[in-house]
Structure formats: C-alpha cells, structure tokens
C-alpha cells in the first residue's frame, strides 16, 4: 500500500530524514519507535504533506501513486490520515461543522452524494460514544478548551469518521492517563481492518500493549536502524534505547 524509498527531508535547511525505506501492506500495523529528535514526527508530517518540510530525495507511493506530487488535501482524500500529536484549536468552528465539511469533501472526491444533516448527526453521535466523548462536544469549537485527552480522542473520532486507508498516529499516547489510553486504543483497534494500514509513531512501548503491532521499527538519526516484530519493542523497553547505541535525551520521562 505505502512504499517509502530512500526518503530524505529537511526543515529550514537542516536534514532530518536521511534515507528512510519502509513498505507497509494493507491490513498491517507498523510501529515506529525512537528517541526524541530521531525524526519520527517529521516522517508523519512529510507523509501528510506539511509544506514546512522539504523532501530533497527519494520517493513515496500510495497504491502505486506518487504521493509527493499531491497537495495535503489530495493525499487526505486518497486516504492518508494523520492523528496529530498536538491538535490545534479552531475557535468558533464547531466539531460537527468541521467533521461534516471534511466527510463531505471526501465523499465529493469519491463521487458520492453529501450526507444530509440528520444522517450525519446520527453517525457523529454514535462515533463520539465510541471514543467516550459526550455528544454535546460536537457543538463546541474544534478542540476549543479540550483537555489533552479529549483532543486525542477527538483525533481518533475523526479517523473513525473519515475511514482512511492509512492512519498515521503521531504520539497518540502522549499525555494520556491509563483510562484514556484504553479508550484511544479501543478506537484504533476498531480501525484495524484488512484493507487499512496503521502506522504508529511512539516514544514508549506501553501503547503497543494495547495496540499490538505486526512490525516494529527503530528510528534514529533520520534512518531506520532496526526492524523486527512485536518482541523488538519489549526488548527496547527492557534495555532502553542505549542498547542499540542510541542516545535518548528524553530517558528521564
């Protein structure tokens, strides 16, 4: 589904990704682990098309299509979804309006009719319950005054509404207490299906206890230095990043 070959990317002239190679097939769940500053978030942003980052070399295809030529919104409509590490607020724009605009943009792209307000409301209420958000939140501004946990649940809600082909979760576990982590993980697990891939980016392995990955990759210095199965994450937890000769400046957390 997703094929990344020798991907290099930089921000403000500084190279962050230095040759990433990764193949993800439909139905698979991949986890990318690594210390802070290794390039995990950059990879997520580059795949989603944030133009603050410049791709200097390499190629990325989604189902054979050159992803790097597409605008952010075109990638989104082709099925790339990014759950943000720090979701921003959009004051005055209700979650309901935001979700409906997004869902209808996707439907329009697929040549489907827009959902009417009543239909949409029903669906949105169901999905909000799935991620344990009070349906009243639909009327509030996007992430406006939300707690950290609510913001993360809102991201997962958006993924459930938009049903992407590839969901990229950027540090979705950060800042969550154990109950919220459970809710978010259940949401992500509900996304798992044979025709959808999930790419999780995380510093810690605790998320992987809830969402069990098929593959684990360790990213350091802008490259994937080790790949393996579920056991690699457990080994990392036990031995720390130092085990692979990587300095983790965030080890205190």
């Amino acid at each position, binding site marked *: 589904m997703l094929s990344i070959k020798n991907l290099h990317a930089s921000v403000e002239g500084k190279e962050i990704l230095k040759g990433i190679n990764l193949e993800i097939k439909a139905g698979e769940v991949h986890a990318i682990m690594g210390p802070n500053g290794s390039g995990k978030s950059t990879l997520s942003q580059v795949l*989603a*098309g*944030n*133009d*603050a980052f410049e791709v200097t070399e390499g190629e990325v295809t989604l189902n054979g299509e050159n992803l790097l030529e597409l*605008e*952010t*919104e075109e990638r*989104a*409509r082709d099925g*790339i*979804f*990014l759950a*943000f590490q720090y*979701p*921003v607020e*959009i*004051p*005055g*724009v209700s979650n309901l*309006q*935001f979700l409906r*605009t*997004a869902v209808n*943009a*996707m439907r329009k*792209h697929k040549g489907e009719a827009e959902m009417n307000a009543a239909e949409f409301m029903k669906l949105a209420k169901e999905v909000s319950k799935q991620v344990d958000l009070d349906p009243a939140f639909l009327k509030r*501004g*996007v992430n406006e005054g939300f707690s950290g946990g609510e913001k993360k649940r809102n991201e997962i809600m*958006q993924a459930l509404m*938009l049903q992407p082909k590839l969901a990229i979760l950027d540090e979705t576990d950060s800042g969550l207490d154990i109950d919220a982590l459970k809710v978010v993980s259940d949401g992500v697990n509900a996304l798992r299906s044979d025709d959808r891939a999930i790419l999780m980016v995380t510093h810690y392995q605790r998320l992987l206890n809830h969402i069990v990955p098929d593959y684990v990759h360790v990213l350091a210095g802008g490259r994937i230095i080790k790949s393996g199965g579920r056991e690699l994450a457990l080994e990392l937890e036990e031995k720390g990043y130092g085990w692979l000769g990587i300095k983790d400046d965030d080890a205190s957390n």
Partner: protein
Amino acid sequence: MATTDNEVKELIKREYEHGFVTEIESDTFEPGLNEDVIARLSAIKKEPEWMLEWRLKAYRRWLEMEEPDWAHVGYPKVDYNSISYYSAPKRKEDMPQSLDEVDPELLKTYEKLGIPLHEREKLAGVAVDAVFDSVSVATTFKEPLAKAGVVFCSISEAVHDYPELVKKYLGTVVPQGDNFFAALNSAVFSDGTFVYIPKGVRCPMELSTYFRINAANTGQFERTLIIAEEGSYVSYLEGCTAPMRDENQLHAAVVELVALDDAQIKYSTVQNWYPGDEEGKGGIYNFVTKRGACIGKNSKISWTQVETGSAVTWKYPSCVLRGENSVGEFYSVALTHNFQQADTGTKMIHLGKNTRSTIISKGISAGKSSNAYRGLVKFGPGAEGARNFTQCDSLLIGDRCGAHTFPYIESKNKSAIVEHEATTSKVSDEQMFLCRQRGIDPEQAVSMIVNGFCKEVFKELPMEFAVEAGKLLEVSLEGSVG
C-alpha cells in the same frame, strides 16, 4: 513559509463577482453642485417648499465645512463638482406596479447578485423596497404592512404623504451640521427609506432594502429614517453591492433611527460594494453616518454589520442612550483585502440612568489592507449606573496587512463601568494544515476559520442574512491562506 505567502496571494487575487454594469437609460444631471442643482433636484421630486429650504440650509452649512481627515485612511480628495447629483431610471412617470413591470435588465442584475426578488418574496417573506440608483423602482408587500399600520416607503414618498413625521424627526438624530458628509447628504439626498412603526406594533416581517450604485459618476446619497413608536419592534435589513468601475464612486448615506419608550430597532447591514481592483484602483468611498437615538426609557437599538466591500470605509453606527435603562448594541465584522481601508466602529453615548451598551467588533485583514476599529464610549453626568462592554478582535491573514484599535473612553460619571477586551490573532499554518489534512480545500478552510471567528456577530443576524454573510466572506476570501 514561502508557499503560504503564495497561496495567500493566490487566494486574494479574486475578481469582484458582482462587477458588471446594467444598461438602463438614465436621466442624469450634468456634474456639479450649486443651489440651482438642489432646486432642480427638489423640483423633480415635486418636494414642498419646506423640504427645499431644509436642503438649502444644509448646503450653505456644508459650504463652510471642511472634509475630515482624522481617520486612519488615505484617498485622493474628492472633487464634489465632478459628481452628478441625480440619476433616475427613465419612465419614472410610469413606475412599475409589480415586478412584471420592472425593467428586465434590473431583474437580471438582481439575479446576478443572487437576490431574485420573486424567490425572496415567496421563500423568505421579506418585503423588498429596492432602490436602484436614486429612485425606488419596486416596492413589495405593502399591503400586509399597511394592515399592521406600518409605513414602509421611499423617503420621497414620505415627504409627500407623511410630512409631519418627516418634519418632526428628520435631522434630529444626525443634525445637518453633524459632519461634512452628513451636511452634504442633507443637501442632496436622492432617495432612501422611511419606516414608521406605530405604538405597540411588532412589524410582521423583516424589512429589507437592497440597493446598488449604478450609473457612472453618480454619487449616491441615501437617506433613511426609521421611527419606532412606544412598545413597537422592527428588524430592518440592508444589503448593498455595486458594479465594477474605474472611477471612485462616492457614497455618503445618512441613517437615523428613533426608538421611543420600550421600542426596539434591529438594523442589520451586509455591505459588499466594489472594493477596487487588486492594485487598489477604483472602488467605492463609503462615508456613512448612522446613528440611533434611544429617546424612550427601556428602548433598544442594535446595529449589526458585515462590511466586506468599498475601497475606503468611514462608518461609525452609533447609539445615543438618552432614555433610562435603554440599551445600545453594536456587532460588526469588517473584512478588508487588497488595498482596502476601513476605519469603522461605533459610538455609545450614555446619557440616561442605567443605560447599557455592548460592542463586539471583529476585524479581518488580508492582502495589503488596513483595518481600524475606532470606538467611543462616553458617559454623561446623568449616566448613573451605566455600563459598557467592548470586545475588539482582529484576525490577520498574511503578513502585509494591518489592524489597529483606537478605543476612546470618556466618563463624567463615577458610577459608570467600562470593560474593554482586545485580541489579535492570525489564521495559523497549523489550523490550515489540520483542515487540509482532513481533505478540506484551503479556500474552504480559510472561509470556515474566518466564519468561526465571526460567529458571535453572525448569530445576531437574521437567518437568511447570516447565510448570505457567510457566503459573502467565502467569496471575499476565495483563496486566502495556506
């Protein structure tokens, strides 16, 4: 980010949708202004002697006044002798009695503006007194209004049919010598709207006037007078748009509102006059004096405005809160782009006891535009227990525009309470990225974010106007950020 800037430029490079000229034969004066011109204008309108005298008095006053230059705007000086002071569609002897009789060109113009009168009447139940150039050509829904005793007509008709009311109130809220543009308007006002709501009557429908400037070089001098008698209520909607022109067109309207005891007037404006091209050429000068007097106790006047057009806007819809417990409100969205300049805000003059006022102003600047809020909150010695709340928010799109806030507060009463809040923000790259990552077009995203920013004001607009205002922002911002 370079890309962001480019996208901003792309977005703002949008042609004025309503730029076209309707070909209707006009009966137009030669440019120039003197007492003879005013006498001819008055004669064409078959005005009584007192009206002509009133105009001449204002004209003489105007000759002694100077054009104000304190606002945060700059424009080449207007040559008042190069303006024509009267323009009317022909066949005025034979005014249309129904829409079927209206010039099809005019109807087409409304179509292009998305204001089909037929549909509006049927769907929205709105009475439309459409002012085309200077003479009203279509007035609808007079009957149900007449049943309620509501008078809704052109100011020219009112001068003939309700001279006592006009004499009693005209110029009482905005005196002839109030300011340069008000004096000019008093001398040469061409037409406008007159509304009278009798005691205890709740106007059965929202009253709406759409008008546009059409004939080239014709200054438009609208005069509006709305009187709400004791215990009455009226909601009045005003919407404007103009065709594309190279010459600057002057618009100097005067609006006067009078609310007696327990009366309420809600005045909403959506203004979309031609703002000039992307180099700032052409565009309307909008120098308007709008003021409401809450002369009765417990009366209330609300101004809601959505301003997206004009090259230069100079406008401060105000409330004089004379009656005890009277309330003044001002809700405003002002959007500027390209080289547009707006200096707009309000004045809340608290004279009576326990008077209250609320000001919510949302300024949006894009391109190289300049957007200023200027507001005066004043408490007279008798304004015991009066209070004001002011909130001014500015939103910047791109990095070449400017936003300014000039609040003035004068208090001669120690018990008065003033609260002022102001914020400035930008449509952030992160917000844009979030929207686009969810599949939303950048243009739609900007429009959605800006609409969210304006929500507090839009909710004050009547339903159909709120929809229109949202659309207008969308059109005005087409393409605005990345």
